[in-house]
């Protein structure tokens, strides 16, 4: 009995070292930035505030925030709401899971020697999973600055997006290729019908021709 109590106490004392929850720190903020604890209401956030697992952050018009997650940083753009779903540091690994409800974030996930990282950023339509990379994500579209991001839609279909490329999905469409995504920036589609097409000419029945001759 005594031995089992000692073992249990030791286990409880050692557990935090092997399995500890990290915190997110608000490093910078501009404008209106609010945070919500897992069981609380929205309150204005001050620089240095710590967010626990389950907390949410929200930015207003022309407002930004910079979050330090230890091995990664997230710059939160204006009109964004994001929740910290999971942030756990174990021996030799860090697991981060965030949910982007609306808006856009720029994430930089640092590589660290000897440290395994799992960084997952989800939205209602898509998921971005990264290791040692930097990217922009607005819930539908991702643009990768450094590294490789595994970008998947709500059905689990994924595509690896390398640096310099982007991809997007509406949730059920296969994530686009880099050139398809780039076309979204450089190509103007002038057709407004829901199918995206205009009046298709046919090769059939050519209209009559008019010939004009002159001396």
């Amino acid at each position, binding site marked *: 009995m005594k031995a089992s109590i000692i073992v249990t106490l030791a286990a409880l004392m050692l557990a935090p070292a092997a399995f500890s929850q990290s915190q997110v720190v608000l490093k910078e903020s501009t404008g209106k930035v609010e945070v919500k604890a897992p069981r609380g209401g929205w309150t204005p956030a001050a620089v240095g505030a710590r967010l626990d697992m389950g907390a949410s952050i929200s930015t207003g018009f022309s407002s930004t925030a910079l979050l330090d997650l230890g091995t990664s940083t997230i710059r939160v753009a204006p009109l964004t709401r994001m929740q910290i779903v999971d942030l756990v540091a174990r021996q030799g690994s860090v697991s981060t899971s965030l949910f982007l409800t609306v808006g856009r974030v720029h994430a930089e996930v640092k590589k660290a020697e000897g440290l395994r990282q799992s960084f997952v950023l989800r939205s209602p339509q898509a998921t971005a999973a990264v290791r040692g990379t930097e990217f922009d994500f607005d819930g539908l579209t991702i643009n990768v600055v450094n590294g490789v991001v595994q970008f998947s839609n709500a059905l689990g279909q994924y*595509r690896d997006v390398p640096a310099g490329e982007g991809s997007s999905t509406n949730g*059920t469409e296969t994530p686009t*290729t880099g050139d398809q995504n*780039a076309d979204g920036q*450089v190509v103007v589609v002038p057709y*407004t019908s829901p*199918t995206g097409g205009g009046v298709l000419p046919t*090769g059939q029945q050519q209209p009559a021709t*008019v010939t004009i001759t002159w001396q």
Partner: protein
Amino acid sequence: MKALRALAFAFLLSLLGTAAVSALDFDIGGTLDDYSSFPVTVAPGSAIFAPDQRDRLGIWATMHPSSAVSIAGAASYNFTLVVPFLINLDYLNMNWRMLPWLSTTVGRFTFADFTGLVLNHTLDGLMLEQDFSIGKVTEAVGYSGLILKPVSLILMSSTDSADQTNSSVYLAAPRLIEKVEVLFTVPLNINLAVILQQDLRPGSQLIQPGEQYQTVSGLEGGSLSTEYLGLGVSGSIAPSLYFNGFAYGSMGSTLSYLPDSGSVTGFSYKYAPMYALLGGVGLKYYIEQTLFSRIELQAIYSSGNANATSYLEGNTSSYSTMFIPISQEVIGVAFMPQLGNLIMLNLNYSLKPWGQSDTVWKNLQLMAKVLSYFRSTTGPISQPGLNASSSALYLGTEPEIIANFRPYSDFGLVLSTGVFLPNGAAFTGSAANPTIGARIEFSMSF
């Protein structure tokens, strides 16, 4: 336009009841599209105009009875110079996501292969899509015989061609098309496609094998059934530089007028096998930081038949090598050939001069394009005017200027102009003269 839409929506609410409509997540709208084309062939002392005008006034609606089901439909009034009044059902289909990885679409919708060059057409049918982590599998079967003839782009046989000027024919060529496509998304985009097409015309409309006389009263040709097997690969070579490549092998049978010692004419009709190829490679380079620029280089090859007397069903040898796509494609502004005995080189550069601004002009895209055309072999192409005795493979070049402008989400405009400079040795008559083409398209939704 938004006010009109709101008014239509309110009217519908009053008819159906607010609760019923809102439960269906119903949306309705309208579109107006115009296509005006003015090609002019210029010769010393004369000019030939061939204007083309097409307009479409449509109404569309979508509803979502549940999160897994969506229904969409659109109908339109169509005007062309040839058919001034045509009411068409553009599409009507239901999509049901039965399982997270399985969805089905049934009704009238667009069927296309991964290139859009073999098949890209509205059909009535059924499609199944299975999504898996690294891609998807699509199976589809569609029928073309219920599509109205004036809005059909399926023109594969001599009988299809003759029907275009037959006022007693209202529907498109009856063909059954089946497609299986597999897409892999990692590490590159890899597409595999198998497409089967069966000509369902009854025998009474076709010249039968064994017929000895070349001209048969009331009949134009035979049936044309084809199969296509394709592979495509695309991906990134370097940051902002992308490649794509594809190849299709096609088989089938085509009615051919071949030597026959037992015939009184020395010839008779037989079905000869078809073995044809379609292939292409392309590069795209994006320089978004420089006025959202894009440079594209593309080459497409489609095999031809040196032993054919005409583009459609003109084979005179033991087998045909003419590639025939299922649906036609619009290429060019002044010169618009179809695939089949055609090699096309496309070099274009586009930019958005005010892409960084906050005004409506940020959605203006300007493009300069050069299209060069060659025949794969001596033999016919889809366009008339070819010099039958010429061995020239180079057909001509068409430089174009195109402006795409979408100042608002519900209004878009395209202005295109091009000059086809033909190789005079390849063509005869007026076709040997330059053709200037100009095209205006606008699209509105409300």
